[in-house]
């Protein structure tokens, strides 16, 4: 397995900047997820690593090899496509051994490797079938087998679960993760599904507008988003961001509420955002509905999510009518339009500069 290093890699299609210059190191055996909305450049980045797309700037290394201008076949990587791209005119067996034939392996090796991956992915019974006869999940298994059989330096996967049914997707998610652990395979995985990214990635690279927004572990991007884009994009629903005006430990929020900033945030906010606009951010589970809460709101809608209720609130007196999501215990029996008060858990509150959208970093 191998390390993949991207140095100032960028892609332009004419005047259109598809990927701004980015740096990224994928460590040996690491599972890195490129996450972002469609059109953010994540697939282009993956295709540049694979060599299916040429770079317009920067360099790509696999281990110490500079592969920037190498043909895809010379990079020793395997690519799993969203629609599997199994060769329809070959049966499953031929599909799986096709990469080995390219390397000119002898018959004994081919048989041995085939037996190994078939065992690993439990697709023995499919070998004589053609791809058209397989279910989506089986096609995905065969595509993975074809990727594994060659023992490449790295796996690149472009939304491999995107075309599967919802319940089957979770099974395959676990299988891919298991494979990754067993094979200790360096993997770069592209998805727009943040739940998938959180579940699978050792690290997540959040991309938007052709640029990397944040690189971090799933808990880092969830709890400490580096900017408002990541805050909103990760989580469902995303992080609540309430606009306010900061002065001397108090954030004057939209409407008639004020928020007392926790002590440990005061000095940094005094320094950076004194008398300026601030965004107070918190996850739905960090909101605490209680009678003596500091923030006044009214119920816009509520949804029962089984174990808990998701309250959709609007701040009282807020003209912008933005909705705040707060997780509450079920059985509160609130009516639509009813007034409620809530607090924000002091450990889980975050602050963002309203102008730049960047997170304010807490001082320890």
């Amino acid at each position, binding site marked *: 397995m191998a390390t993949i290093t991207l140095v100032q890699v960028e892609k332009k299609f004419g005047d259109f900047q598809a990927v701004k210059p980015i740096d990224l190191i994928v460590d040996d055996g690491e599972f890195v997820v490129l996450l972002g909305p469609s059109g953010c450049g994540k697939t282009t980045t993956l295709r540049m690593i694979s060599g299916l797309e040429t770079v317009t700037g920067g360099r790509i290394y696999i281990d110490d090899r500079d592969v920037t201008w190498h043909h895809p*076949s010379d990079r020793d990587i395997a690519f799993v496509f969203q629609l599997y791209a199994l060769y329809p005119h070959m049966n499953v067996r031929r599909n799986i051994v096709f990469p080995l034939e390219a390397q000119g392996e002898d018959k004994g090796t081919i048989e041995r490797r085939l037996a190994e991956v078939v065992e690993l992915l439990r697709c023995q019974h499919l070998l004589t079938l053609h791809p058209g006869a397989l279910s989506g999940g089986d096609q995905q298994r065969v595509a993975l087998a074809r990727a594994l059989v060659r023992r490449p330096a790295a796996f690149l996967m472009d939304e491999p679960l995107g075309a599967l049914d919802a319940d089957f997707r979770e099974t395959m998610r676990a299988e891919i993760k298991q494979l990754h652990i067993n094979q200790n395979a360096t993997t770069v995985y592209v998805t727009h599904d943040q739940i998938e990214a959180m579940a699978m990635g050792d690290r997540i690279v959040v991309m938007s507008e052709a640029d990397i927004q944040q690189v971090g572990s799933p808990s880092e991007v969830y709890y400490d988003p580096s900017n408002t884009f990541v805050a909103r994009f990760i989580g469902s629903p995303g992080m609540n961001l309430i606009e306010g005006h900061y002065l001397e430990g108090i954030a004057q929020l939209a409407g008639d509420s004020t928020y007392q900033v926790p002590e440990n945030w005061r000095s940094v906010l005094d320094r950076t955002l004194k008398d300026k606009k601030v965004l107070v951010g918190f996850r739905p589970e960090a909101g605490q509905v209680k009678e003596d809460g500091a923030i006044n709101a009214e119920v816009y809608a509520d949804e029962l999510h089984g174990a808990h209720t998701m309250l959709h609130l609007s701040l009282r007196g807020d003209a912008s009518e933005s909705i705040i999501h707060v997780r509450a215990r079920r059985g509160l029996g609130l009516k639509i339009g009813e007034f409620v008060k809530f607090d924000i858990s002091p450990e889980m509150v975050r602050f963002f500069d309203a102008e730049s959208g960047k997170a304010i970093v807490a001082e320890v």
Partner: protein
Amino acid sequence: MASFEESGPSTPVTEGIRVDKVSPRSRRLKRIRSLVVVLIALIGLIPVAVMVITAFKSRTEVVAVPPRLIFEPTLEGFVFLLTERSQMAPAILEEAKQNAGELGLFDRIALNAGQQITGPSDFVRRLRNSLIIAGGSTIFTVALGLFAAYAFSRFEVPGKGDLMFLILSTRMLPAVVVAVPLFLMFRQLNLYDTHLGMIILYTVFNLSLTTWLLKGFMDEIPKEYEEAAMVDGYSRWQAFYKIVIPQASTGIAATTVFAFIFAWNEYALALMMTSETARTAPPAIATMQGRGGIEWSAIAAGTLAFLIPVIIVAFALRKHLLRGVTFGAIRQ
């Protein structure tokens, strides 16, 4: 079984059938429509049927008025088509008829018409010329068309749209219009009445159609297949012939048939650009003259013989052809 009109549908109407399409009234209309289609097809087939019948008639039967549908079939037409004969003197004829048992089938048939076979006719050579020229030009056209179509389908070719239009524009005027300049060019280049010249000519005329057809088929093949092959360790060229060509086989088959039929049937240019060495069958059939009048049975036999290769090609590739014609109509 009671007809649908009285009983209604005996099987449940499944979701694929629109109710208004299976209502008794529309079923009746559908029957009428089918009948009309069959009638048109039958009318269209009359000349073919006449041709087939004529090919098996004797010289006297051919010119009989009114034409007879029931007659004694003979291979006379084919014999006249494939051989050169001379009229026999009555005395020799009598003698020859006595020894008829020793003669071959063709000789006996000629003998019945009072003729003696003196050698094979030109038509065999014409047919061979047709095969060489049509076959050769089809191979070149499809091979060149494949590369052109692949390039247009996959790569950023500067001015792609304009180029495709330009290629098509070669088919926008009748080929015969350019016959005179072509004739002059061919004479200058010593290509007049040569197989090579005709192969080049038909390749050029067919290339636009094959490029367009094949590009359509190539566009339908997702580029991910080649990309998968390339990351699997193959060059683009290998991906092209290991992945793209097998998957385009339907389209290639359909295109091959179209290209072959065009070159095989082409008449006007063949008439003008060839005289002897490279003359193909169509002009030869049309100009066939017999001794003592036009030998209709020989002409019909020649046309029939001429149709056979096309029928064989179309029949062999019929599955591909049918799929090829409807290809791309349904997206999976």
